C-alpha cells in the first residue's frame, strides 16, 4: 500500500496516489516581491468558494486584519513593516536610492506599542540621519495552503475525506469529513482548520454556517481546475504576484526570477517550498520571499510528521510488548 518515497522524498503525488495518467501537477508560485497587498485574492477566494466572513476585528498588525490562514481564510495577505538597512537592490544597474524613512529606535518589525516608547522626535530630524541612509520596507505576501507533496493532513486523515486530486493537490470532501480535527495539528504550516459553528460565529449573528464543524482549506479551486479555469485568487491578482500553472514550469520561472533579483542586488530574495528534497517533498504552492520565512509566519524548516511514522510505530510496538511483559511479571512470584 505504501510505495517508495510515499512518506518522504521526491515523488509525483498524483502518480503515487494511484492515478494512471494524471494531468501535469498544478500549483501556485507566489512572488511576494511584486505583491501590492490589495487582498483581491482573499476576496475572490471567499466569493468563489463561499467562505464566510472571519470576523470584524482590527488587529493592528499593519494592514492585516485577517489574522491567519484558517477555516474561514484560505488566502491570507501578511503585512510586515520593516525599518531596514541601506538598500542594495539599486547597486545593480541603477543609482542607489534613498527611501527617506528613518529608523526609529532599535530595530523593530510592525507598528507596535513598543515602537512608540523608543521613538522620539529628535531621532527623526534629517540632520540626525546623516551618514547611513536609513530605509524602510513594507513586505506583503499572500499566504495559502502549500498542497505539499507529502501532506500530513492527508496522511493522518482517518476517514479518507482528504484526498489527492489528479492535479496533485489536496482537497477535503465536505460530505465525508467527520470533523475529527486530526489534520489540524498535523499540518506543519498551520493551514487547515475545523470550521467553528454558528454559536461562536464571530459576527455574532446565528446564521447557519456552511460546512460547520468540518475541516476546511484551500482546494486550489478544484472545481475551476476541472473546468480548465484559473483558481479565483490567481485570476484576481492584478500584478501576477500569484502565478498559477504547472509546478514544473513554475519552479523554472521561480529560479529565473530569483536569479534576476540577485543580479539586481536584491540579495534577500529567496525561494521557499520549491525544493522537492525538503521536509514536505516540495510544496505545490511555493513562494519567493524577501526575508526569513518566520518573518512571514512560515516555519523555517517544515517537516511532514509522517516522515518518522514507521519509527513511531516501532517504538509503540516495543512499548506494547514491554507492557505485556510488565503485566506478566507482576503476576509472578508469591501470591499473598
Amino acid at each position, binding site marked *: 500500500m505504501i510505495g517508495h518515497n510515499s512518506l518522504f522524498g521526491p515523488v509525483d503525488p498524483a502518480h503515487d496516489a494511484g492515478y494512471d495518467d494524471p494531468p501535469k501537477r498544478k500549483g501556485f508560485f507566489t512572488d511576494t516581491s511584486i505583491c501590492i497587498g490589495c487582498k483581491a485574492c482573499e476576496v475572490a477566494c471567499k466569493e468563489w468558494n463561499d467562505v464566510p466572513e472571519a470576523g470584524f476585528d482590527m488587529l493592528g498588525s499593519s494592514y492585516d486584519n485577517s489574522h491567519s490562514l484558517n477555516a474561514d481564510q484560505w488566502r491570507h495577505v501578511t503585512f510586515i513593516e520593516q525599518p531596514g538597512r541601506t538598500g542594495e537592490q539599486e547597486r545593480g544597474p541603477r543609482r542607489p*536610492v534613498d527611501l527617506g524613512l528613518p529608523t526609529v529606535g532599535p530595530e523593530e518589525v510592525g507598528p507596535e506599542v513598543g515602537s512608540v516608547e523608543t521613538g522620539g522626535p529628535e531621532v527623526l530630524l534629517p540632520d540626525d540621519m546623516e551618514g547611513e541612509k536609513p530605509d524602510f520596507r513594507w513586505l506583503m505576501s499572500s499566504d495559502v495552503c502549500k498542497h505539499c507533496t507529502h501532506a500530513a493532513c492527508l496522511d*493522518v486523515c482517518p476517514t479518507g475525506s482528504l484526498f489527492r486530486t489528479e492535479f496533485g493537490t489536496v482537497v477535503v470532501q465536505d460530505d465525508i469529513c467527520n470533523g475529527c*480535527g486530526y489534520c489540524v*495539528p498535523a499540518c506543519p504550516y498551520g493551514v487547515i482548520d475545523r470550521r467553528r459553528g454558528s454559536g461562536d460565529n464571530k459576527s455574532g449573528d446565528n446564521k447557519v454556517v456552511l460546512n460547520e464543524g468540518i475541516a476546511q482549506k484551500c482546494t486550489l479551486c478544484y472545481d475551476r481546475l476541472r473546468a480548465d479555469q484559473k483558481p479565483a485568487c490567481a485570476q484576481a491578482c492584478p500584478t501576477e504576484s500569484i502565478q498559477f500553472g504547472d509546478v514544473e514550469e513554475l519552479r523554472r520561472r521561480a529560479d529565473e526570477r530569483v536569479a534576476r533579483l540577485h543580479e539586481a542586488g536584491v540579495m534577500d530574495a529567496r525561494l521557499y517550498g520549491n525544493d522537492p528534497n525538503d521536509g514536505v517533498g516540495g510544496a505545490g504552492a511555493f513562494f519567493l520571499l524577501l526575508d526569513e520565512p518566520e518573518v512571514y*509566519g512560515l516555519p523555517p524548516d517544515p517537516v511532514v510528521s509522517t516522515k518518522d511514522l514507521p519509527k513511531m510505530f516501532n517504538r*509503540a510496538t516495543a512499548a506494547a510488548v514491554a507492557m505485556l511483559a510488565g503485566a506478566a511479571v507482576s*503476576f509472578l512470584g508469591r501470591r*499473598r
Partner: protein
Amino acid sequence: MSPGVGRSGQADRTPGREAVVGSHGGSPARRDRRRRGPGGGDRAMVPEAEFTSYYGRPVVKPAPWENDIPAYLFSGGLAAGSSLLAAGGDLNDLPALRRTGRLAALGALGFSMAALVHDLGRPERFVNMLRTMKLTSPMSVGTWILSIYGPFAGAAAVGELAGMMPERRVRGPMKLLRGAARPAGLVAGLTAPPVAAYTAVLLADTATPSWNAAYRELPFVFVSSALTASGGLGMVTAPPDQASPARRMAFGGAVAELIAEQRMERSMGITAEPLHQGRAGRFMKAAKVLTVAGAAGSLLASRSRSLAVLSGAALMAGSACTRFGIFEAGQASARDPKYTVVPQRERLERGEPVRYTGEGPRS
C-alpha cells in the same frame, strides 16, 4: 532592457515578470531580537531564545480537541491495563482481580467511545472512521485496534456479569456468554497493549512541537502510565490478599513512568519547557507527587486496606494528570511560535536542514 516602440510597432509585449522590487534587500536577513506576542518569555526556564515571528502568532495550529481527548488517553490506558489485570487474574485464579479488570475495562472502554464521538465536529458521522483502513493515520489504526479489542473486552465483561447471576437463572445463551468469557478475556488481554500504546503515536504524529519531539519516549510513558492506573484500580477494588499483582503492576508502572518521563524530557530540548509552565506544568507536578506517593504507598498497601485504596486512587489520579499534562503541554507548544521556529531555525543554523538524501524510509 527597455525596448522602444519603433515604426514597425513591434515593441516586445511580454516582458515577463522582471520588475525589480521597490522594497530594498540587504544580504543575510536581519533577525528581530525581540520576543513579541503571547508565549510569555518571562516564564522561560532556559536562557531566552532569539527568534522572529509574525506578530507573535502561532505557526502551527493547536488541535481543536477538548478535555475529551486527554480523558480518553487515560480511560483507554485504564481499559487496556484492566484487561491485562483481568487476564492475569483469570489465569492465576484471582477472581476479584478478574472481575474488577473485566468490568473496569468495559466501563473505561465505554467512556472512551463516548469521549471520542463527542469530540468529533460531526458526531453523527462517526462511522466514517470505518470506511477505510489507513496505515498512515494513527487515528485510523487506533480505530481498528479498538474495534478488534473492544468486542472481546466487552464479551469478557458481559460473561463476568452473567457469572454474577444466581445459578438457577443461568440457562441457554447465558451459559454461552459465561463460557465465552475466558477466551474473550484472554484475547482482550493480548490486544490491550496496542490500545494503550497507539495513543502516543496519535499525539506524536503531528506538527505539535512538544508531542512530535517526544515520539521516542512517549509510548513508554503512556503504557507505564496505563499500568500504573490499572494497578491502582486493582488496589482500590480487590481485597489485599488478591491484590499483590495489582500492587506490583502499579509500583512497576509508576517507576517506569517516572523514568520514561525523565528520558522523554531530556530528548525534547526546548520543547520540554511547556511541560513545566502554566496549566501543563501544574498537571505534571501533581502527576509526579501523586505517582511517587502512590508508589510508596503501594509498598505498604498489603497491610492496610485503606492505605491500599488511598494509594491506588493516588496512582490513578497521577496517571490522569500525566495525560492531561502532556496534552496541555502540546497545545501550549503549538500556541507559541517559539517552539516551532527555534528548533527549526537551530537546525538550519547547524547546517542540518531536513532534506531527502536518497535513503528514504520504506515500508
